[in-house]
Structures are given as C-alpha cells and as structure tokens.
C-alpha cells in the first residue's frame, strides 16, 4: 500500500467532516450529517491503524508495530468506544452541558499527551518550527483540559456558579502566559530530559490558566464558555496536526475551532456583549449593586394553579418561554402534556426560545425535543418576538434575564441592549419561579412587577403537574 493511499483517505475523511457539519445545520439533513461524520471517522481510524502495521512504508519496513503496541492500542480504542457509547446512551438530557464539557476536557488531555509524546520521541533532533508547534499544542490542550473540568464542576454545581474574581486577575493571566513563554524559551536547545521537564512546567502553568480563566466567568455565561471550550479543543487538535504533520488533524481541528468560535460569537451577539467582555469581564458580580438601588416600583401579584388553569383554558394564543429553571426542575415532560391538552382544546401553544436560555447553546431545544414536543412549535427569538402583542397568555418557566424589559427601556441596566423576548407585550404573563431571586446577571426583573404579570411560586415541575391535573378536570 503506497503512502499516498492514507493521504487520500484522510482527504476523503476531511471532506466527510465538512459535509457532516454542513448537514448538522438543518433539521432535515442533521441525521445524515451525523452518519457522514461517523463514516469519516471510521475511515480515518482504519487507515491509521493500518499504518501501525507499517503498510504504508512499503515492504522494506513492513516489520510494523509489535504485537504489544497493537494490543494496547486496540484495547484502548475498544475500551474508549465502550465507555463513550455507554455514557452517551445513559446520560440525561438535562446533563448534556456537563457531558459536553467533560468530553472537551478529553480532547485537551489527548492534545497534551500527544505533545509530550512528540517531544519525547523527537528528543534533541527537533527543529524550531516543530518545537513551537509542540509548545502551542500543549498550552492550548492544557487550557482546554482544566477549563473544561472547571466548567464541568460549575455545571454540576460542585463549585458555585459565581465568578471567582481575584484582584489583578488580568495581570495573573498575563503572568501565566509569560511563564509558559519563558519556560518554552529555556527549553529550546536544552538536553532532551531538561527540555521535557520544562514542557511539563508549561503544562502545569497552562492548566492553572485554564482553571482561572473559566472560574472567573459567571454561570449565566456558560453557553459562551462551553462553545468557547469547544473551539479550543478544535485548535488543540489542529496544533497536534501541525506537530505530527497530519493534514486531516489540521483540517478537522480548524473546522471545529472555527465552528466553536462562531457559536460563541452567536451567543455573544444574543447577549449584546463582546466576546472579550464575556471571557475577561467577570460579568454577573458587579451589576448587583447597581440594581439594588432601583428596585422596581409596584407590587408583585401572586396567583394560584386554579386561576392559571382557567387563564390557559380560555386563551387562544399561548407562548411558553422556558429557561434554565425548567431544566433544573426537569419540568419538560409535564409541560409537553399540558401543551397536548391545550392544543387539543384548540389553544395555539408555542414555545419561544432565547439563544442563551439554559447552560448550553440550544439546550432548551434539546430538552423540549426530548419531551416529544414537535420542533414546529418551537420558535426562535426573531421568529416569535413580534407575536407577543397578539398573545393572550405568556407562561415563563424558570427564565429571568431573557424576558427582562430593562434590556429595552432602561439605559442604566447592565443588560440594556440585549435582545430579549418581549413577553410583557402579551395580555397576561404568568411567571413560574421558585422565589423572587434575581437571575444570573444579578439584575432585578421589572417584569415581575408589571400590572399584567402574575407570579406562580413553587417548584416548576410540581407546579406544572398540578396545572395539568387542573386542566384535565
């Protein structure tokens, strides 16, 4: 088998990955896209495993890998596929953000390991370009790894979602990057062992950087962070491609890297903030004091399940706005049933999804899909925002900042200018909430105090279940 075969297969795999992502951009072609990705991956792995036998180097070197290596690598692939498949089949849809975060961290670790291995193998023969590639790959990989781990812990709730704002945190970040740079320079030309230790040092500093970067970001910005880490994992893979002179890794890494970057940009646009503001801003802690001074006038009107059921029964148009609260309470299934009951009665029930609702881009869509709600009923911000004025009842379930009218009319508000779902234009708004706490942005929501708003306090799932019971009577 001439070595060009592997190159051609890699090229095909690269194309398949591009088509795969392309397919994923529309509902109709999404499943096909996933399959194209799988085929590409199988091809690429198969030809690489074949490479282990040394086929591509011609007969003279056909000795190939020893059976030991083959057994270890084969076992690693099999075990990994088994674990991955098992976890993916069992994971709860509400735990998707955590899963995505932890998978990102694996790519990060793998990039670090590949970097360490490459340096170890090359020893003193390494040229400068290659050396720089290794350092970069390890840096990005380590940041991805620890950043993802912290993101995972935040999403899990293991550590609080409040941003950790150390004094002089920008200086600290710069110092860490500078430290990596210094170690890399020291390691250049040093004996292989020393050089390797310096690379380990870079790994350590970059790991600290990853922890610190993500810890400083508030819970409400998690969708951006997760997609940003997605992007990093792509760049890490691309860096590995440079190290190993492998075009498939470079192509795939660049694809993933830029797609993650775009997703982050889309999320940021949905919050009317710049990416720098999200990554370095430590948003979510400072605005609290600004809002404390201006508690909205008016009083909160509370309602009960029976009244809400009556309201829904007599409505013609209903829009449901889900937020993170719905995910936490796992309320999507009873909501599906409520939707079915109401639609059977001829009520036009639809869902309005804000781009940054939840903790993962597209989180709400996945949960509603899981509950079996047709995606035709699920509308995006731009599609539905003009319809609120013709709507009889809006039900807000566990969402806060994304329906905050301050974003439109209060210049002083920290979220001013952010596109929001204009729920207040509906005749009636019912807000399901656990308590009167402010949202992740720490901003009071004047919507709670509007005259057409009533509050329904309690756990979202239990409330929706009793609502269902009341509707079925």
């Amino acid at each position, binding site marked *: 088998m001439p070595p060009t075969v592997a190159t051609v297969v890699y090229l095909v795999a690269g194309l398949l990955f*591009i088509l795969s992502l392309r397919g994923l951009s529309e509902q109709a072609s999404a499943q096909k896209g996933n399959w194209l990705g799988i085929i590409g991956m199988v091809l690429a792995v198969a030809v690489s495993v074949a490479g*282990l036998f040394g086929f591509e180097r011609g007969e003279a*070197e056909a000795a190939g890998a020893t059976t030991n290596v083959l057994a270890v690598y084969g076992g*690693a692939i099999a075990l990994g596929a088994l674990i991955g498949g098992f976890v993916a089949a069992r994971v709860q849809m509400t735990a998707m953000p955590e899963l995505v975060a932890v998978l990102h961290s694996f790519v990060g670790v793998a990039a670090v390991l590949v970097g360490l291995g490459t340096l170890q193998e090359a020893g003193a023969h390494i040229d400068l370009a290659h050396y720089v590639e290794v350092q970069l790959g390890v840096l990005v990989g380590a940041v991805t790894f620890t950043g993802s781990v912290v993101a995972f812990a935040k999403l899990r709730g293991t550590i609080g979602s409040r941003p950790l704002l150390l004094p002089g945190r920008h200086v600290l970040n710069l110092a860490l990057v500078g430290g990596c740079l210094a170690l890399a320079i020291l390691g250049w030309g040093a004996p292989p062992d020393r050089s390797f230790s310096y690379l380990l040092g870079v790994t350590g500093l970059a790991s600290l950087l990853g922890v610190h970067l993500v810890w400083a970001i508030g819970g409400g910005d998690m969708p951006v962070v997760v997609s940003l880490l997605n992007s990093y994992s792509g760049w890490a*893979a691309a860096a590995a491609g440079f190290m190993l002179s492998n075009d498939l890794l470079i192509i795939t890494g660049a694809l993933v890297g830029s797609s993650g970057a775009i997703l982050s940009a889309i999320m940021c646009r949905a919050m009317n903030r710049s990416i720098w503001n999200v990554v370095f801003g430590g948003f979510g802690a400072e605005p609290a004091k600004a809002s404390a001074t201006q508690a909205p006038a008016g009083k909160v009107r509370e309602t009960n399940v029976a009244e809400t059921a009556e309201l829904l029964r007599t409505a013609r148009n209903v829009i449901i706005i889900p937020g993170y609260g719905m995910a936490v309470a796992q309320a999507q299934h009873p909501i599906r049933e409520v939707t079915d009951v109401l639609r059977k009665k001829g009520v036009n029930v639809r869902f309005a999804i804000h781009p940054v609702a939840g903790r993962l881009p597209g989180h709400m869509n996945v949960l509603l899909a*899981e509950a079996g709600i047709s995606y035709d009923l699920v509308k995006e911000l731009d599609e539905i925002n003009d319809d609120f004025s013709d709507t009889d009842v809006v039900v807000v379930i566990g969402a806060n900042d994304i329906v905050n009218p301050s974003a439109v009319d209060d210049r002083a508000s920290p979220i001013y200018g952010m596109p929001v779902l204009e729920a207040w234009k509906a005749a009636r708004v019912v807000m399901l909430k656990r308590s009167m706490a402010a949202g992740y942005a720490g901003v009071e929501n004047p919507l709670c105090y509007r005259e057409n708003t009533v509050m329904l306090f309690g756990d979202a799932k239990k409330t929706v279940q009793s609502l269902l019971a009341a509707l079925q009577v």
Partner: protein
Amino acid sequence: MDAPPRLKVGIPKETFPGERRVAATPTTAARIAKLGVDVIIESGAGEAASFLDGAYAEAGTAIVADAAALYAAADLVLKVRAPIETDHGHEVDRLKEGATLVSFVWPAQNRELLERLQAKKATVLGMDAVPRITRAQRMDALSATANLAGYRAVIEAAAHFGRPFGAQTTAAGRIKPARVLIIGAGVAGLAAIAAARALGAVVSAFDTRPTVREQIQSLGATFLQFEWKNETGEGEGGYARQMSDAYLEAEQTFIAQYAKQSDIIITTALVPGIPAPKLITSGAVVSMARGSVIVDLAAEQGGNCALTEPGSAVEKFGVKILGFTDLPSRMAPQASELYAATVVQLLELVLKDGKVTIDYDDEVQRGALIVHEGKITWPPPKLAIRAGAPAVGPTGTHKTAKEEKPVSPWPMRIGVALALPLLVILGLFGSPSLLEHMTVFLLACVVGWHVIWNVTPALHTPLMSVTNAVSGIILIGGLLLGRGRDLTVTTILGAVAVLLASINVAGGFRVTARMLKMFRH
C-alpha cells in the same frame, strides 16, 4: 421687593364659527397650574365642550369676564384654532407684546399670520408643528384629533346613508353589508377603518405609501394595491408626499374603478403644506350608486373630491358629499380633553421655573417653535426623521431603536499588524511543509466559518456534540505516536490519548444520534 409676578396662562373662548373645543379642561388647567404659573380662563370658554365655569373654578382656575380682560393679562395664551380676524380685531393684535401663543398655526398656509405674530414679538409654538417622532407622541395633537375625525367621519356617513352598515339575515330578506372605501390610511384613515369594521361594513383601503399595507390589513380591511412606475407616496416623517400629474391621473382612474362598487367613500388624503389632491373626479361621483355617501376629511384643505363644498353637506348626482370641517369639534368634550392633554405635555417641556424657555437642541421644542421672540424660526432645520408608524389608538406601540455598539476597528487592525510580520517570517524562514500545513489550516478555518454560519439555533447542541466527536480525531495523533515502535513512554502516552479520544468519538456521535432522533415534527 416683591417676588416677580407669576406667569399668567390664559385660555380664551374659541372664536372660529362653529368651533366648540377649548384648549384646556378643568383637569389640565390644574395640571398647568402645578408647573408654577397662574391659569385664567375666559368665562364660558369651555361651555360648548360641556366644561362649565364652575368646574374650572373648582379646579382652582380664575375666571375672567371677557376676552379683552384675558388677553390683557395673559403672558401665555392657549388656543385650539389659529388666531383669526374677529369683530374685536385680529386675535393676534389682542395679544400682549412678547406673549407666547400655543395653538394650531398651519404656518405653511398662513404666511400673513406669521408676519403679524412677528410684529407682536410673540413666541409661537404650533401644535401642528410638533415633530412626529416617538418621544413626541404624547404631544401629537394632530394624531389625536385625526383619530377622532376618522371615527366621526364613519358616524356621519352612517347617519346619511339609507342602509345599515352590517349584514343581517331577517325574515324579510338579507341585508347586504355596506362597502366602504377609505382613501388615505393615516391616523384618521386607520381610525375610520376600525370604526367602519366595528359597524360591520366590508372595508377596503387605499394608500400610496406601500408601508401602511400591514397596518390596513391588521385592522381587517383589504389593501388596494396601486402600482405606478417606481413612484411611491412615502414622504418625510411618514407623511405622504406630492406626486407627479401623470401619477395623479393614474391614481384617479384607479380610484374611479373602485368608487363604482362602493357605498361609502371616506377620503383622508393630505400632503403636508399643499392643497389636498383631487382624487375623486366628478366622473367617479356620477358612477356611484344613488344614495351613496362621500365624507371628505380633507375638505378644509380644498377636499379630495372635486365636488366637495368645504363646511357643508351637498347632494350631487344623487351622492351625498359631506365636506364638514368641524368633525373633531362635533365631539368637543373628547376632542378638547385629548387636545388639552397634548398641550400640557408640551408645556411641561418648555415651562421651566415658571418661564417659557426653549431648548433649541431638543428637536421636539425646536420643531414646534414657529416664532421666537419676534423672529420667524419656521421651518426648522431638516432633521432625519424616522418614518414612524402613526399611533393607532391606545394600542399603538412603538419600538425603541436598539443602539448598536459601534464596532471598534482596533481588534482588526491589531490582528493584521500581528499577522503580517508572522507571514513575512514564515515566508522567509519557514519550511515548505510548514507552509503547506499553514495553507491547509487557514483554508479549513475559512470553510468551517462558512459552513457553520447558518445553523438553526435549535441544532446548536447537536452541532456541538458532533464537532466534539469529530475533534476526537486527535485519536489519530495518538496512533501516529505508536507507529512502528515497541512499548515506550511515547507509545504509552499515545495509548492514553487514544483511549480518551475514543471515548470522545463514540460518546459524541452516539449522543448526537440520540438527540437528533428526538427532534420531530
């Protein structure tokens, strides 16, 4: 020394024949007084609008016996109609020197009036000159008046029409609904559509501005599409503009063909500053069924119908043509309340510390200002005015324009500044293979960028998990480390990388497949 005397705001009785409105109600008079001024009113000023002197007195407003006494005392005069010649001389001549006047002024049609006001060294704020911008909606007296006029036009039409508006099935046979054609869908036109629909009529509406189509349709009327070459009738500030003669002719023909089938025509077509366009020719009137009614809301500006006689109701060729110019005045109590409310809003803007102070930088005040201390300041300098939708009754909503943060050019510039030297270094010292990889890398970035942009937001999570699986391609990196070697530190590092990456690949694809299966119609 005494404190300087407080500014006196005076409300005279309207002198225009048949005018029943008044520029302040007892409620708004009290609100004006709160601005730190004294309010006086001519005895009987509000009587025709059902506001009696007693009510004003109760609200704390001083009553003065006649117009002479009022004009002698008032520093600021509030009126509805523009000042006119009366038996006691021109109203402007009765103003105190240097006084302020707030009323409808119609400066474009009343050049001579402006000169008189100038001679009096007056300051004049025209309620009709308040710019039509979102912030000034609460002081938009024209819209408030037009709204009532549109409603009243339908009521007058119904009173003069020999049939009901709504359809009915009776024992004696079926009553067909009246067919109403509204020409001009401004505030008055839209109010007329709503009122005619409420009475049960079948309504169609015509306007040269294509942008009002949605508003017409939202009120349940049919929009009559008129297209002629590339001209549209959309002018500055959401008003209609003057059209060419050929256009007008085409328009007349178009309207004539619909006039034939209509029982009622209500015309509201006005272009600011010029006589109303004659849209309904006498030929079109002849073609209408006997007993039909035309209400010409543009009568005061000459009328949209060629046969309109401003101020009166006439019957021509069996068609009743109502050219009333006092429709708002026919609902004087309500019209006064609305007008008075807009006046208060404007006063709240210009009365500071009990004095009239005009802020030239405020486009609302600058727009309304017609004469300032004897200098004619009309027309105001041109401003870019947003073509705002006219407010439709109380449900009219407005969108706050979102401020776009200007994109700083610096990140781009810094990026270019960093990238350029890097490329130069690569070109000078880089190895050919590195450059090849760089090419592949940059092209792949561009491809990724373009492939992803149009993803539907609903698929963000599946997209993310599939890219996650795909980035497990780093598995190959691990495999490459193990190529052709025995177990060493390197190959073991590679094996761990392979293990982790395979978890990623399998998990990513599997969970994506699971999610995608859930999405369904």
